[in-house]
């Protein structure tokens, strides 16, 4: 090696060292800035999570605090004398006589008897306003069910009207000017007297869980809407699950990969983004107007929601099927299983947790859906609890909408209570999806 080369190498070593030192210096100078950026990013993240959590907390506290009063109801205890001459003067015990008797008068008279000094017609009417219009109905029910009660004095716990329920709960109080509230000072005094006599009681609101909708807030319940939702969901599940899974299996396992299947795939994804009210219009035009299916029925509601849920289920199912490792398919094929056997014995069972999760999420979406159901008449005021999928019905979110729209003040609490019940179902369904996923998760 010549000296010249040696020197050159030495000098190049020199420059290399210098360059390394420079690079190291550059890294060191930048470090502080990099860490600062990371710290800032973390702060933003924590802030975002905090805002989201705060929103949820506010939402839940508002709903729960305004909904809780709906879970109690105020009743008045009255000893009603079921006199023979008032109900069934001829003693026939004929059903129509029993139904048509004037129970209103009976109940009103009993209440008036508590205040013998109230004589003026107007005062009398103001006094009986304490009672709910459902009170007479409750007495009627009892008598029709058991005619032997006639001639006895029976103790009833009758609902008070919504305004007095709110007075009892302190929502209506004397702070408001008398002209601005629906309960007069006189009525308040009577009510207080009744309370002093121990006739007023507050208990768990069973009416809310056993009745359907009503014009009278104290008689309105959530059961009708719950049953409506249940029937609708059953129809939706029965339609969308098999159709969705079949479509996904065909597209994923059997269909050739060509332009046509690509177009189908794109369209399914597009379908998931179609506004739900469009599905409602479609249901109105096709199912009700063309096929003549009953309006306001869970059958049609379920069909419309099934259309809406299908893309969700298909997309989730395809993702779940894709996630099954090809080695499992190869193993089964290599043993001589037919393609159908590969799918039914191996791929589908392994994909099932994912498919179920997708289905439940789709169903939860459908449960909370309002707009398409408005289109097909499930927004009607229905006082009967539906007994099947062709009975007129409404569903929980529509019930929330209807109550939120009602002017009576007592519906405010009921709206929140209905939201709580809807949210309970949704949380339950999402929890179920998580549990299923955890339980059937497999490693391979």
């Amino acid at each position: 090696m010549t000296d010249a080369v040696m020197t050159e190498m030495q000098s190049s070593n020199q420059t290399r060292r210098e360059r390394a030192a420079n690079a190291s210096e550059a890294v060191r100078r930048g470090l502080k800035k990099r860490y600062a950026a990371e710290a800032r990013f973390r702060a933003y993240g924590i802030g975002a999570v905090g805002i989201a959590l705060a929103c949820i907390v506010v939402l839940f506290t508002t709903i729960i605090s305004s909904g809780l009063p709906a879970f109690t109801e105020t009743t008045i205890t009255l000893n009603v004398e079921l006199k023979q001459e008032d109900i069934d003067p001829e003693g026939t015990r004929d059903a129509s006589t029993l139904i048509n008797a004037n129970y209103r008068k009976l109940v009103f008279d009993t209440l008036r008897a508590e205040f013998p000094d109230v004589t003026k017609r107007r005062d009398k009417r103001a006094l009986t306003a304490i009672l709910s219009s459902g009170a007479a109905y409750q007495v009627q029910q009892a008598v029709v069910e058991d005619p032997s009660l006639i001639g006895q004095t029976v103790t009833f716990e009758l609902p008070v009207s919504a305004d007095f329920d709110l007075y009892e709960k302190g929502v209506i109080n004397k702070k408001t000017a008398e002209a601005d509230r629906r309960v007069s000072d006189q009525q308040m005094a009577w009510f207080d007297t009744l309370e002093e006599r121990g006739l007023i009681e507050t208990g768990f609101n069973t009416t809310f869980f056993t009745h359907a909708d009503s014009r009278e807030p104290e008689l309105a319940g959530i059961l009708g809407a719950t049953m409506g939702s249940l029937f609708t969901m059953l129809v939706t599940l029965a339609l969308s699950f098999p159709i969705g899974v079949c479509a996904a299996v065909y597209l994923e396992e059997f269909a050739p990969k060509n332009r046509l299947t690509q177009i189908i795939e794109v369209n399914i994804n597009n379908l998931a983004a179609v506004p739900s009210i469009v599905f409602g219009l479609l249901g109105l035009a096709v199912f009700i107007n063309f096929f003549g299916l009953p309006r306001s029925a869970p059958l049609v509601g379920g069909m419309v929601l099934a259309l809406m849920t299908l893309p969700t289920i298909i997309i989730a199912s395809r993702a779940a099927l894709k996630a099954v490792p090809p080695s499992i398919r190869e193993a089964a094929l290599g043993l001589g299983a037919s393609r159908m056997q590969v799918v039914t014995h191996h791929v589908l069972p392994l994909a099932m947790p994912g498919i179920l999760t997708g289905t439940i999420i789709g169903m939860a979406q459908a449960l909370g859906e309002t707009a398409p159901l408005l289109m097909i008449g499930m927004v009607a005021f229905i006082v009967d609890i539906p007994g099947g999928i062709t009975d007129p019905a409404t569903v929980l979110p529509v019930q929330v909408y209807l109550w939120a729209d009602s002017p009576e003040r007592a519906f405010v609490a009921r709206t929140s209570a209905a939201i709580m019940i809807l949210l309970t179902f949704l949380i339950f369904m999402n929890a179920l999806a998580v549990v299923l996923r955890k339980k059937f998760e497999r490693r391979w």
Partner: protein
Amino acid sequence: MGEVNMNNAVEVTAPVASSDAARETKFHTRGVQVFYGEKQALFDVDLDIYENEVTALIGPSGCGKSTYLRTLNRMNDTIDICRVKGAIELDGTDIYSGSIDVVHLRARVGMVFQKPNPFPKSIYENIAYGPRIHGIATSKDDIDRIVEESLIKASLWEEVKDRLDEPGTGLSGGQQQRLCIARAIAVQPEVILMDEPCSALDPIATARIEELIDELRDNFTIVIVTHSMQQAARVSQRTAFFHLGDLVEVGETGKIFTTPQDQRTQDYITGRFG
């Protein structure tokens, strides 16, 4: 390098060993070409596979040895763009002609894959599955017997006989691969194809599988793809060397490794490429 080299397959005229006199051709393949879309992966492969022998397919990555193996039980059918040309006969019947159903073919020609792939089910169910779908056994007793026999043949019985209900995926890698071999045996195939069965295993597990392959030779015809030339030398009677989609050379394993006829074989086994 897409040239078709038909004349490069040199059949080594080995001195006929005593056992070779009775050997019969199981697979008779002539002019096998495989295409993946436009790309040709195999060029006119002529290869015979003899009964009750282990035939090893060796060659560098991408040379087409796995592709060839997968034509033998039509596993290539599952790939949409894959086309196969040429004659592939199993006991004189062309397996691509339609005279034999693919499900039936795969019952006769079992397969063991590179990565152990037991079903995520119990050990028992893994083995019982094949016989059950083919209707080989229906009664519980018959299936019990097949499970036990298959596990014994795969020399796994002693290790798992007390825990047949445990998931097959909970076994060690080597045990899983033997379970897959037992699963293939349970269908009572005539041929077992093995696609690099030891590449995911440690040396000890590999040794056990190799022993097992040697034992299975008495009852089955075995075709094994391997990257390890030592393995080919240890387990096989005949070796076929593939290169870039051509079958370069095929012959007695001993001959291939000691006196290869083709320069490329020479280069490969001495480690110059691959």
